[in-house]
């Protein structure tokens, strides 16, 4: 399912990352085609978040290469800020800027990084907020919104930079159950529009529905990559089976 004729959005080769003596990523190889959605599953501490943070260069890597749309972003002397414009990331804890209105949150980077005028940036932000039904909240501060609304604003803030690739780091894990759906619906819509996404998630049924491929991470290694049907019905690895059994036992599948 890597999509024959499509271009390559992301290629990771032999990625290693340690925090002190703790090796979190022990040689990751992964490719994403353009418009592909890949979900990363695995228990907490398996390295999902670290992998996403490495791709966005928020963490320096120890070894390996990361190539985005044909450009090696881990090469020496690349402009980190230029790379990050093309890769959006949404965090578990939203990380909205609490001292700015919703509109300012979404329009800050387009203004300061892309050099858009305030009017243009705010028009773009308002349009995006309108698409998620939050245009009327644009002058509110983030703390006045519900968790689901905040997370959708965070997604739109990343989209305002028109990234080639969107990384989602367990974006529904901090939400009340009844707020999860509104966030997942937005991701579903983005996938339908062809956004390339790498999604770390614990929402197995969502992963099964949306992903082109599922990637099981275990102790810093990709143990198994397969289309969802295969991964959930006939996992090859024993560790994958154990993990999925635990998920089923917990009632999350």
């Amino acid at each position, binding site marked *: 399912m890597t999509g024959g004729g499509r271009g390559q959005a992301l290629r990771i080769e032999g990625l290693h990352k340690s925090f002190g003596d703790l090796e979190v990523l022990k040689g990751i190889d992964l490719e994403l085609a353009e418009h592909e959605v890949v979900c990363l599953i695995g228990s907490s501490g398996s390295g999902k978040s670290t992998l996403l*943070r490495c791709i*966005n260069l*928020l963490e320096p890597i120890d070894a390996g290469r990361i190539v985005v749309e044909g450009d090696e972003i881990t090469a020496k002397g690349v402009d980190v*800020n*230029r790379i*990050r*414009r093309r*890769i*959006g*990331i949404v*965090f578990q*804890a939203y*990380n*909205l*800027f*609490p*001292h700015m209105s919703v509109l300012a949150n979404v329009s*800050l*980077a387009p203004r*300061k*990084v892309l050099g858009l005028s305030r009017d243009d940036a705010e028009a773009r932000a308002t349009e995006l907020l309108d698409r998620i039904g939050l245009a009327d909240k644009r002058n509110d*501060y983030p*703390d*006045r919104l519900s968790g689901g609304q905040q997370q959708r604003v965070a997604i739109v*803030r*990343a989209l305002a*930079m028109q990234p080639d690739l969107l990384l989602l780091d367990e974006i529904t894990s901090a939400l009340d159950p009844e707020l999860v759906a509104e966030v997942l619906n937005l991701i579903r819509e983005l996938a339908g529009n062809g956004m390339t996404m790498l999604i770390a998630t614990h929402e197995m049924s969502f992963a099964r529905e949306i992903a082109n491929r599922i990637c099981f991470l275990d102790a810093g290694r990709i143990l198994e990559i397969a289309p969802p049907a295969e991964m959930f019905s006939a996992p090859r690895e024993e560790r994958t089976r154990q993990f999925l059994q635990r998920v089923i036992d917990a009632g999350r599948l």
Partner: protein
Amino acid sequence: MTLTGGPLDPGDLIGLAGRRGPRRSRRRIPPGEALRSTAIALVSTVVVVGALAYAVTSSPNWPDVRDAFFNGVWFGYSWPLLVEAFGTNIALFVIAELLILPLALILAIARGLPGPVFFPVRLLATFYVDFFRAVPGLLIIAILGFGIPALDLPGVPNDEFFWAIIALTLVYSAYVSEVYRAGIESVHWSQEAAARSLGLNRLQAYRFVIIPQAVRRVIPPLLNDFIGLQKDTVLVSSLGVVEIFREASIIKAAKFNFTPYLAVALIFIIITIPLARFTDWLVRRDAARQMSNR
């Protein structure tokens, strides 16, 4: 509703407890009990203050002390002179504060610069802060105010007022930079991560995301240092600059009466208290705007 606040009230962490949104009473007090509490507070205050007043005024030397410190005639005589001299103090602390706020911020940022390249910058900034916090302000004022004009360097001002401002700026920017630094460090690293992930460079992340949040959090301690600075402007009297304390001392020496000193104290109280209330209001307004009324 509990009698004590929840243990995890985030407001407590940044010194804003009870200031989020409109004020709420923590528990409902029946009217009878409230009246009784007020009555008890009133009686006990009258008793305590009355006893203190009696103890002081019953001292055999009280009439002399009253004439020396609480003399209405000398108060009326010195008041306009002191208010006029206070203009010098205002100029000192306003100009110094305007220099301190940006200088201290630069120092705080310099101490936080990462990587080995900036090691000398960090080292210098740290040394600066350590040095000017260690040496008494009066010494810095004396050394700069007497020392540098004595050198008589060409092109260097010999004015005591000028060196007084420099000395106050050097000393207080060391304190204020530590306040800023605490504020910057209190902003969670995920805020910088979010800003950088959008493509903002480090400078932009600091300017638009980190610093605005840090400064909002440290407004009360910044005001604390500003009040300290206002009061320390009297140290400049040691250079012979005629500010309010110098003026009071001149009157005291000429009229053999200490009442001007009490007038000086009163003037400092009059300007400090409204400033403190204004800051409280500023912090409350900011918190109310950002926080929901949960």
